[in-house]
């Protein structure tokens, strides 16, 4: 079929060629003397009244005939002949002012030259079958419509395709008539000028112009081409509306070819407007719309909002707005409401920065009205009968998102990964200069927090309303990628205020893994909008990614308020972190019940409790105590179930306030009374009598103290405190001097504790994720009992001593203080009193053992030896003395221990057990403390003195002296008993070195000559031969450094039997 068509077509061409060739041959042989005047159709009426036989007319005929011949030569493929003939014709016609035909000759000359010079020109387009949209119906110029992508720099590859088979270089050499490229343009110009002289030659003029443009494009002289083209615009043609549209379209194509896209767009738009011009009887909105779409590129407008906004594509806003408004209008007239809404939405979104407030409002109203007919979905729209695709429009700037916060879970829902294996390997380098690079190259948008599967998660957006109109965003939700995420929609109203407004979007991750938050979607006025972060350049992050961990249980932790009766406040509901506040008196113990409520759907399978305390010197476990085992026994906590943890709170406080009343004179007397060398008659009654004076002096001084605490401090430092106790006292006084209100124990203080409960369960437990719950406990400690001063006094019993305490009830309520098992005292608020507490003396063995332990640890620091000694004694006392009381109207119980009590070295021997134990019997009867011994005059009283070593070390040899005196019971004592008494056996004897637990016994007899009450003192001291003073337990240890003794050397030590043996001698 095709082959026959082809054959027939070839046949036709051959016939056609034969015809032309015949015509040419005929014309060549025609006589030039009487040629017929050839003329254009519109010229015929001009011929009337012209002398046909004039010389000019004859010349004209000849010239025109020559031109016709040239045309024929060209048509049969003889360009060289044609060139020569055209040139001749030009010469002839120029002489007779035949401008129209002269122009035609020029045009022919140019065309032929172009054919020879640019043989490839249009070759590849000639065969295009659809290509004949010639301007003005001119069929002689095919290929005016050129594929736009071949606009510039048309590849001139296919040369030498001239059908006549001529070598292109040949005519140039052979034909002197061939024009140079510049001449071609010149001649075209001339031809066009001549054409323009004829009103009817518009079509030919246009044609010539366009040919010239094509030549200029080939010559790459675009500016000149533009001039020719702009000339075309001015040519006035009588055309139908349709033809005009075609003409403008063609112009636009031409401009595109020379690279003048703006001009092309301009004419395209003119063509589009022509389609729907008011005078147009049959407006074609659809064509107008398509033509308008074609202009977009020239205005640098892309309908893809992401692309348009992202690149910040430069353009001419006023013109862009115009074209978009025309698109909106046209699509509406077409009845394509979907497209209309989309264009209006794009207009609003893309051109927002260029709108005035009023324009914003107008466009918003417009969108409201068009979208009421048809909304705009999220999918691209295809324009009917064309390949145009209108992408969906989003509103990334209405409202404008200022910033995005991916919210970590609330504090009690945060998770923690406990897997030691996952600890990051920092590499073998301690410092690497690449570290900073590595850290900065972290993936942008990676959020360092974890969401938990099944938990409600939040993202906060800050939106700014650029419209100053209330915006109602429907179905607003997050757009995510990665693991399955249940995004919850919400309807958000952005108020018409210029401030940023916070919007929270929530959702629930459905499975563990990596979740990427890409953006958010909403619908505004029926326009569905998917706003991705990557299209918002100001956010700088293409997406946010975070990790979703497997489901974990979640508990609420609070204090069971039913168990508390005193000022216990639990305000966990508000802050997320629950806190318990308790007010307690110092020394009081409180019990509170902490309830762990599982509010999640997972059961709690594992629990750990940790205690944290910020400001404690004492350490939290002294204040807070709980039983973890008890809690663990309640596991697992089923969903909705509860478990409880009992917490014991002890209001720990510093009960000792040394130096608080250090200038107390009464205490000095007390202390001087305990000076070692003098014999002490331990009389509790006398102590009590003294106490009253001390009390009064204490009270009196309280007033003084109120005057100035500074004088208090200065008097302290100036006072002649005994060197032993001055260590702590001076330290204390210096503190007092620096702080004007040294009242650590007097004002309320707060103990803060934090109970950290970490728990896990469910699938999260397999992945080693834990959750934490905190409950803060704040204990306000009100002062209760203070020990202002203390001292040690000998007691009646040799194995005991009295610890005398000055107590101050600093609470405002009455206190019933129990200081020993069976003694208690009532103290009013603010009152102080002095109580003696009998304490078992500290066995030396215990001390020595402790000292050795300490020595081992601190071998060189000798000075610490004594301090540690007093500490040991303090500990000993503290372990034995416990003060208990009930306070206030509720009889709140309290207790205090005297920890960190220290004693000056002078009192150490009182607290420590004496190394010598006396075992005295008279007449075979054991002499007990206070036992009455009665003897007769003249009878020998047999006295057995037993000495045993009760210390842990060997005792050196001792010298024991018995001294008898007569007590007149009136304060005078008579030591001169030479005439009243005689002794059998030595009253002064030596005791050999005694090993531990070893004892020695001495026997002697006493005979009294007169009646009366006699007393016998028994005192032992190290033998004078022994150079070692033996006042201290340190002496017994061999390896004590010398300077250690220097202090104790000053004291002369002796052990006495107390009280002295009393014998009443009767007749």
């Amino acid at each position, binding site marked *: 079929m095709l082959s026959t068509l082809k054959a027939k077509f070839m046949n036709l061409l051959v016939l056609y060629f034969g015809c032309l060739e015949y015509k040419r041959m005929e014309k060549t042989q025609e006589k030039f003397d009487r040629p017929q005047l050839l003329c254009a159709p519109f010229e015929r009426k001009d011929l009337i009244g012209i002398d046909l036989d004039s010389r000019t007319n004859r010349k004209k005929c000849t010239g025109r005939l020559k031109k016709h011949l040239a045309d024929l030569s060209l048509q049969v493929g003889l360009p060289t002949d044609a060139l020569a003939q055209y040139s001749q014709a030009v010469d002839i016609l120029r002489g007779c002012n035949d401008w129209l035909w002269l122009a035609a000759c020029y045009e022919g000359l140019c065309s032929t030259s172009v054919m020879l010079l640019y043989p490839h020109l249009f070759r590849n387009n000639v065969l295009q079958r659809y290509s004949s949209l010639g301007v003005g119906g001119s069929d002689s110029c095919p290929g005016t419509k050129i594929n736009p992508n071949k606009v510039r720099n048309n590849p001139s590859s296919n040369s030498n395709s001239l059908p006549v088979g001529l070598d292109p270089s040949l005519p140039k050499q052979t034909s002197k008539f061939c024009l140079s490229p510049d001449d071609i343009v010149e001649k075209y110009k001339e031809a066009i000028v001549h054409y323009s002289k004829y009103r009817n030659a518009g079509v030919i003029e246009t044609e010539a112009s366009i040919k010239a443009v094509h030549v200029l494009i080939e010559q790459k002289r675009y*500016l000149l081409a533009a001039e020719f083209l702009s000339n075309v615009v001015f040519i006035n043609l009588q055309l139908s509306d349709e033809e005009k549209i075609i003409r403008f379209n063609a112009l636009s194509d031409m401009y595109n070819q020379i690279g003048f896209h703006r001009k092309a767009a*301009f004419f395209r738009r003119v063509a589009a407007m022509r389609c729907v011009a008011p005078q147009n009887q049959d407006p074609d909105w659809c064509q107008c719309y398509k033509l308008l779409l074609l202009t977009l590129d020239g205005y640098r407008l892309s309908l893809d909002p992401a692309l348009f906004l992202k690149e910040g594509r430069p353009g*001419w*806003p*006023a*013109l862009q707005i*115009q074209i978009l408004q025309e698109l909106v209008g046209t699509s509406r007239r077409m009845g394509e409401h979907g497209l209309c809404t989309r264009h209006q939405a794009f207009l609003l979104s893309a051109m927002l920065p260029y709108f005035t407030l009023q324009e914003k409002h107008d466009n918003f109203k417009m969108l409201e009205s068009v979208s009421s007919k048809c909304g705009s979905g999220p999918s691209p729209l295809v324009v009917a009968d064309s390949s145009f695709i209108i992408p969906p429009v989003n509103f990334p700037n209405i409202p404008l998102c200022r910033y995005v916060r991916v919210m970590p879970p609330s504090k009690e829902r945060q998770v923690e990964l406990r897997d030691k294996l996952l600890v990051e390997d920092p590499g073998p380098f301690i410092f690497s200069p690449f570290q900073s690079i590595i850290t900065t190259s972290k993936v942008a948008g990676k959020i360092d927090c974890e969401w938990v599967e099944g938990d409600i998660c939040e993202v906060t957006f800050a939106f700014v309303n650029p419209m100053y109109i209330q915006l109602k965003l429907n179905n607003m939700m997050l757009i995510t990628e990665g693991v399955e995420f249940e995004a919850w929609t919400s309807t958000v109203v952005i108020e018409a205020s210029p401030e940023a407004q916070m919007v929270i979007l929530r959702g629930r991750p459905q499975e563990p893994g990596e979740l990427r938050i890409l953006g958010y979607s909403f619908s505004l006025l029926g326009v569905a909008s998917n706003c991705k972060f990557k299209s918002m350049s100001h956010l700088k992050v293409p997406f946010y990614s975070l990790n979703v961990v497997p489901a974990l249980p979640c508990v609420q932790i609070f204090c069971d308020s039913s168990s508390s009766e005193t000022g216990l406040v639990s305000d966990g509901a508000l802050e997320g972190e629950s806190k318990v506040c308790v007010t307690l008196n110092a020394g009081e113990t409180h019990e509170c019940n902490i309830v762990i409520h599982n509010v999640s759907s997972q059961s709690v399978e594992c629990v750990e409790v940790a205690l944290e305390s910020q400001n404690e010197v004492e350490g939290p476990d002294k204040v807070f105590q709980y039983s973890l085992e008890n809690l663990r026994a309640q596991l697992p906590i089923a969903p909705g179930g509860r478990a409880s943890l009992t917490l014991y709170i002890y209001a720990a406080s510093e009960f000792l306030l040394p130096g608080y009343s250090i200038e107390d004179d009464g205490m000095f007397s007390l202390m001087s009374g305990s000076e070692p060398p003098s014999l002490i008659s331990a009389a509790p009654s006398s102590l009590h009598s003294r106490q009253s004076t001390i009390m009064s002096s204490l009270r009196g001084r309280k007033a003084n103290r109120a005057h100035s605490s500074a004088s208090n401090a200065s008097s302290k430092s100036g006072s002649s405190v005994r060197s032993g106790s001055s260590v702590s006292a001076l330290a204390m006084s210096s503190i007092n001097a620096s702080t004007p209100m040294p009242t650590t124990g007097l004002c309320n203080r707060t103990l803060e504790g934090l109970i950290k409960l970490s728990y896990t369960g469910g699938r999260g437990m397999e992945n080693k994720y834990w959750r934490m719950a905190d409950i803060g406990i704040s204990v306000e400690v009100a002062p209760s009992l203070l020990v202002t001063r203390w001292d040690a006094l000998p007691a009646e019993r040799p194995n005991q001593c009295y610890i005398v305490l000055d107590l101050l009830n600093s609470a405002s309520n009455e206190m019933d203080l129990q200081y020993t098992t069976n003694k208690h005292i009532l103290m009013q608020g603010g009152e102080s009193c002095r109580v003696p507490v009998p304490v078992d003396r500290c066995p030396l063995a215990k001390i020595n053992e402790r000292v050795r332990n300490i020595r081992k640890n601190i071998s060189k620091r000798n000075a610490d030896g004594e301090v540690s000694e007093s500490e040991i004694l303090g500990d000993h006392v503290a372990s034995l003395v416990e003060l208990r009381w009930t306070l206030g109207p509720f009889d709140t119980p309290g207790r205090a221990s005297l920890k960190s009590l220290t004693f000056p070295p002078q009192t150490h021997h009182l607290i420590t057990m004496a190394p010598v134990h006396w075992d005295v019997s008279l007449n075979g009867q054991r002499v007990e403390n206070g036992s009455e011994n009665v003897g007769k005059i003249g009878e020998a009283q047999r006295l057995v003195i037993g000495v045993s070593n009760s210390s842990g070390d060997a005792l050196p040899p001792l010298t024991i002296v018995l001294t008898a005196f007569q007590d007149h019971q009136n304060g005078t004592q008579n030591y001169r008993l030479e005439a009243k008494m005689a002794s059998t056996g030595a009253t002064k004897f030596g005791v050999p070195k005694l090993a531990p637990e070893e004892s020695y016994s001495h026997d002697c007899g006493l005979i009294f000559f007169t009646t009366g009450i006699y007393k016998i003192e028994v005192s032992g001291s190290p033998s004078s031969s022994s150079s070692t003073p033996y006042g201290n337990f340190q002496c017994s240890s061999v390896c004590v450094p010398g300077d250690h003794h220097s202090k104790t050397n000053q004291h002369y030590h002796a052990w006495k039997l107390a009280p002295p043996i009393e014998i009443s001698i009767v007749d």
Partner: protein
Amino acid sequence: MAVSLTIIGKENSPLYIWMDEGRDSLQLQYLAHTGLDVIQEKISVGQKLPGDSRELYLGLLYASEEYKIYGYTTNSKIKFIVITDVTNAALRDNEIRMMFRHLHSIYSTVVCNPFYVPGEKISSQ
């Protein structure tokens, strides 16, 4: 007197537009906008001769039936376009040239303002 004056930025977006009152603003903007085509073409020709200090004044870009469009470009590719009436014979080429020079110096002062970010819209007081 010119009819319109436009300053166009490097990326071919207008920085400043002034229109004589009473004129069809959109038409004039279309003219200026299409004039950019010619300017671009002229600049690209100029770029082929590096080192050659180009004449900044580009002369008449094109003429429509009513208006003449003149162009001028700075070395930093800021373009000025002035539109005059075709009938206005008072404005010769030399006057237009002076007008552009003046405009260029005014633009330089604008750019010298430390608070002006190049590429932003310019507003006239």
